[in-house]
């Protein structure tokens, strides 16, 4: 049954009760008493009440979708949805569904209650999915009739690739950075790890003064911290694929995501490029790397061969001090030769699928192999 945009249909249980009502009605007509019709009338009244309430609840329930629809493949959508009950009595049996599956199920909402709930939607494979419409359904309160109302969203669901723990990619161009994970032999005026005190010199700020030690009478002493260093990692993803091996491609994307996480954990700066794209994405330390993950969510395999000139352009976009890490779906010999010849002093690492046998690569290149759950060196 369609009433404007809302649907109202009996559930399976509702159909069974209607069938039971019809049989009971026919039988009750032949009884010498009308009292069975009383019971039947009450059951009909419950049906009518269910229709009315389900229709109202589905139509007037207020749903506010999160502004950010992002998640990781295979996991639940994290961003919470706000549901508001506008009625002055409790309602329930609410279902939010989308083309991708069930988002939320709520058993009960109190009078005028507003809740923020995490959806139960299990995200599909990496990608960008249109999320233009969801349906709010309710079978409140008896489950005999189900009413559904569509809600327009005009959103997109961005599913990021999943990741796994892996070795930190080689980094270079280390610089003092507060919060960096690497320690240098030098000391600095600020940092996380307290190193000790030293006598104050004229260039020291008064904020560095360690008053407790200075009070001992040996002169003004200032604090020293361990110098924390962080490096730079440049990541180039070559999405060119020779055969229709979608699984390998997905593994490569996951590898890129995992490398990003490992870089973040180590406190390095990541600059990443997908070969053939025009933009370089910077992922500062301790950020969520959303932009890079969004790119990885959208990337598609390409059969078009790599253009050396554009690859060179991409490499030049990377910071000159950063390492060069290439994630490829084949052994990128020619690409590596070019990079080695042009940038002999830079650290280079390559990540290739484990299905590639005996890659012939330069000794100066670190070779890693990846599959769907780990990255390792042979």
């Amino acid at each position: 049954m369609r009433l404007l945009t809302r649907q109202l249909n009996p559930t399976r249980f509702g159909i069974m009760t209607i069938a039971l009502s019809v049989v009971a009605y026919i039988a009750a007509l032949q009884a010498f008493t009308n009292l069975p019709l009383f019971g039947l009338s009450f059951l009909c009244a419950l049906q009518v009440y269910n229709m009315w309430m389900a229709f109202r609840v589905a139509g007037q329930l207020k749903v506010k979708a999160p502004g950010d629809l992002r998640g990781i493949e295979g996991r639940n959508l994290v961003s919470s949805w706000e549901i508001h009950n506008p009625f002055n009595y409790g309602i329930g049996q609410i279902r939010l569904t989308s083309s991708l599956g069930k988002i939320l199920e709520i058993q009960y909402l109190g009078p005028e209650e507003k809740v923020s709930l995490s959806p139960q939607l299990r995200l599909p494979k990496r990608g960008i999915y249109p999320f233009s419409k969801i349906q709010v359904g309710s079978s409140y309160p008896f489950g005999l009739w189900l009413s559904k109302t569509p809600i327009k969203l005009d959103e997109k669901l961005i599913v990021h690739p999943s990741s796994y723990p892996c070795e930190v990619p080689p980094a270079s161009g280390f610089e003092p950075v507060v919060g960096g994970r690497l320690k240098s032999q030098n000391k600095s005026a600020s940092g996380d790890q307290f190193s000790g005190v030293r006598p104050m010199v004229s260039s020291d700020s008064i904020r560095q003064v360690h008053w407790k030690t200075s009070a001992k009478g040996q002169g003004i002493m200032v604090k020293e911290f361990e110098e924390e260093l962080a490096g730079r990692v440049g990541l180039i993803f070559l999405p060119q694929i020779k055969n229709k091996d979608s699984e390998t491609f997905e593994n490569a994307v996951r590898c890129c995501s995992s490398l990003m996480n490992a870089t973040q954990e180590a406190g390095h700066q990541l600059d990443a490029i997908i070969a053939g794209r025009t933009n370089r994405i910077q992922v500062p330390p301790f950020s969520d790397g959303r932009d890079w993950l969004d790119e990885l969510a959208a990337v598609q395999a390409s059969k078009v061969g790599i253009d050396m000139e554009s690859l060179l352009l991409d490499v030049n976009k990377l910071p000159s001090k950063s390492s060069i890490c290439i994630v490829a779906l084949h052994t990128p010999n020619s690409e590596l030769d070019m990079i080695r010849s042009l940038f002999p002093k830079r650290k280079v690492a390559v990540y290739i699928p484990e299905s590639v046998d005996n890659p012939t690569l330069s000794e100066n290149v670190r070779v890693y192999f990846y599959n769907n759950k780990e990255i390792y060196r042979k």
Partner: protein
Amino acid sequence: MNKYLILSIFLGLFCTGLSVELPISIEIPIPIFSILYCIVAYAVYKMNIKHVNKNIEAGLLCVGIIVSYWLGAYLGANQLIFMSNGLVVYQLFRLACERTKRQSRLAMLVCLAQVWVGLLIIANFLPFILIFSISIFLLPKALTETENLYFPVRNLFSVFKFPKVHLLPISLVAVLVFVALPRIKLSRSLNPLQNAVAGQGELQKKADTSNSVDGGGERMVFQIEGKQIGYLRTVTLDKFDGLSAWEESTWIQLPDTKRSIWGPIPKDSLERSVKIISTSLLRNSLPVDGRVEKMDINTGNRFYLADGGGALTPLNFHDNPSYRFWTYNEPIPSPMNKKFRKRYLNIGGFEVSNQLKQFLDTQMPKNLTDQETADFLTNYFIDNFTYELGAPKLDRISAIDDFMFNEKTGHCERYASTLALLLRLKGIPSRVVLGYVPREYNNIAGFYNVRTKNAHAWTEAYIQGKGWVQFDATPYEELMPYEEKSLGFTLIESFRYFWFNRIVEFDSEDRSDLIQFSKGIVTPVVNAFINTLPQIVLVCVIVYLVYMIKKNFKKVKLKKKTPKEQKAESMLKARSFYGKLLRSLAKQGYEKPIAWTPNEFAQFLSQQGYPLITEIKSITKTYCDIYYGSKILSEENESVLQAQLAIIAAKK
């Protein structure tokens, strides 16, 4: 933990147990099987078995249904209804084991069916109200509980509470559906739910003049509603055995083919509504009075008007039918053929004694018409005889003479049968009619209770040009008086009558009456509303205007400030002006010490030769008058102060 579902299952089992009627009669009806089912269910529920093999469950369920079907036939119950007892097995398994969501739903469905069976069985008010009230309370919650199984629990504090205020619209819809549902009766032969069990009748179909009767009891036979209710006939006795007894011949039960009772409601007819309580006492007779022109019965059986004037229908021993008929109190003149006349004059070889002959020849006036003859004889009995229950038995051989000339006392049957015989001897076709005379009137609900003690016998004589005319020779003053019951009894009886006739047996006729009644109330109200609409609109407009004026007046009133508020506002403004003055002077190098008063500071400035001392003094005076006095700052003063301040501020 699904407590409402479990309670509903118990309720369903209780209702199913009501369908089991053992073939033994018990004084106080106890729902033995209902209680038994509940006890077994509770024991099973406490067992808390985790899992039962599906095949075993299915097998036991099939066995249960087959056994219940067979048992239903054995006990004489409706087998389709009785099969609900087989479903008890399914419910017991649901109580014993853990339920899946689907099983919970099926259990709920079975419970609904079982409660319906219970409502089918019971008819009395109290048990019905008890079960229906529990159902209204339990079933919605159980249904919600069953549906909630499909949703995760958010937190323990989010407990579903059915909004009680919603019970009112649900009840209203239920009542509307109950009233609106069409009611169609199938004939008995097509009805699979009927079980025809022949009734054991106690209907009297014989009247013997020689008998002695002690009188009937208080047993209720039927209830009748209507105006100007006459004598209600059940049996017509037309065959005299020649001695003292009258019987009903078979041909008198044949349908009266001259009349049709299926047409529209006859004009100016009197309507009666009858509810039969003791079917066994009436067997297949439906008490009617007068000349019945139309009839309607709720059993779906065929019924017909017998040639003897009564209405007949095959009644089930378990039935409690209701029927309506439309009748006229006056007889209609209809011709009687010779064959019928011969039958109604047949005295069965009765030997007329000399005494009787003499009475008929000499004591009766000559040249009387049939009507006058019948009246004379009727009055003769009324004036000269007495009514007595338990009068001595008469001589069987000469019962008539014994009654006429010796005893001269007796019950109604003696008078009716003797009068009928005398009329036949006088050549007037006559017959004896047995029936009831309603005497116990319920003036709240407007119906009569007819009991066994209201049984009566009278005579009917065929008067040329008039038809069958009723004559009651029983002496009046000893006849059953109109009974008056206590108010409490009357109220209870009224309620019972309303319950059974208007609710338990609510039919399409009652619905039409209800609609007419509603129209009767609603139509005048609507008409009155339409007629007075302009006045109503005018009143509404006036009320609205008054309301708006009052609302705006309140706003206007708020704008006007009280003197206290004005004073406070003035003080604030004055302080502001003086503060600006001090700031301006401070910029010019003249700071007022805290300890000095405004006047002292003004004096100081005057001594210092401040050029704008006039303005300083004016501002200071105004400030002091407002802040320390009772002066209010007017708009004019305010503008003057502002101008003076501007002058002082402009000085370098």
